[in-house]
């Protein structure tokens, strides 16, 4: 497996939707290629960081205010 081939299936590797027969090839490539191993690990970490940390927080007071407005308007609709 070449680095370009690895890159084309990187998403599937990250999403763990790789066919069993391809896994051995990937593991072999990663053992031989430090760059691809770094790209895989740091891309995985990138996704994890964005999933675990709030980029845009909705403060409770704003949430309560918006929530009241939404429900008030909904009650008027029906």
């Amino acid at each position, binding site marked *: 497996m070449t680095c370009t081939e690895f890159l084309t299936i990187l998403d599937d590797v990250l999403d763990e939707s790789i066919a069993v027969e391809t896994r051995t090839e990937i593991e072999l490539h990663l053992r031989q290629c430090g760059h691809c191993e770094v*790209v895989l690990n740091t891309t995985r970490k990138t*996704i994890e960081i964005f999933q675990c940390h709030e980029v845009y927080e909705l403060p409770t007071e704003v949430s309560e205010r918006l929530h009241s407005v939404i429900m008030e308007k909904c009650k008027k609709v029906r």
Partner: protein
Amino acid sequence: MSTIQPVAGQDEQHPDVALVAQVRAGDVAAYDTLVRKYERQIFRIAQHITQNREDAEDVMQDAFLKAYEKLDQFQGNSKFYTWLVRIAVNESLMRLRKRRTGKLVSMDEDVQTDEGSVPRDFADWAPNPEQNYTQAELAEILRKTIQGLPQGFRVVFVLRDVEGLSTEETAETLGLSVPAVKSRLLRARLQLRERLTRYFGRKTPAVAPAAAAPNGDGAEA
């Protein structure tokens, strides 16, 4: 903050189905439950697209209200959440259009770029690099990093990786093909990785001041 919803089995009914039925039967309190369940996600998505706090608040209100008004049109072929996200994405794009005085805004904007499609920085990261920053600093880094992505990539990444929609749901929501979503997702992930490496990448070991010799041949730290 993981918002990935538990996937209901084929025969298992998603809990939203019952709530939607209750709302249709006139139970407004059931809608209150749905709003509380998804308001943070909808606000985040709107903020990611509009990049404007006031617009995101308006989008959140309008999306929930529109969903309530049009609930009879909800077919139930998709999840309520996916349907709601689609409304929020459309409302967000409309807001952007208003800000840009009518200029067409689409999901294809700025995606014709090769930036980041091939990794260039191979510096490894320290374990848990985010721990070197305060929560506020980290949020700022993540904001700056994701704001720099072309909109067409950013929205795909947010829906698929942050908000937990499947590739198919993301495609359906944005009116894109599955291969287009996959291609944009890969490029978004790689660009974000590349940008975060500037903050989290291990630096080349510096010359320790005490060990540095005047002729510059000091030992590496």
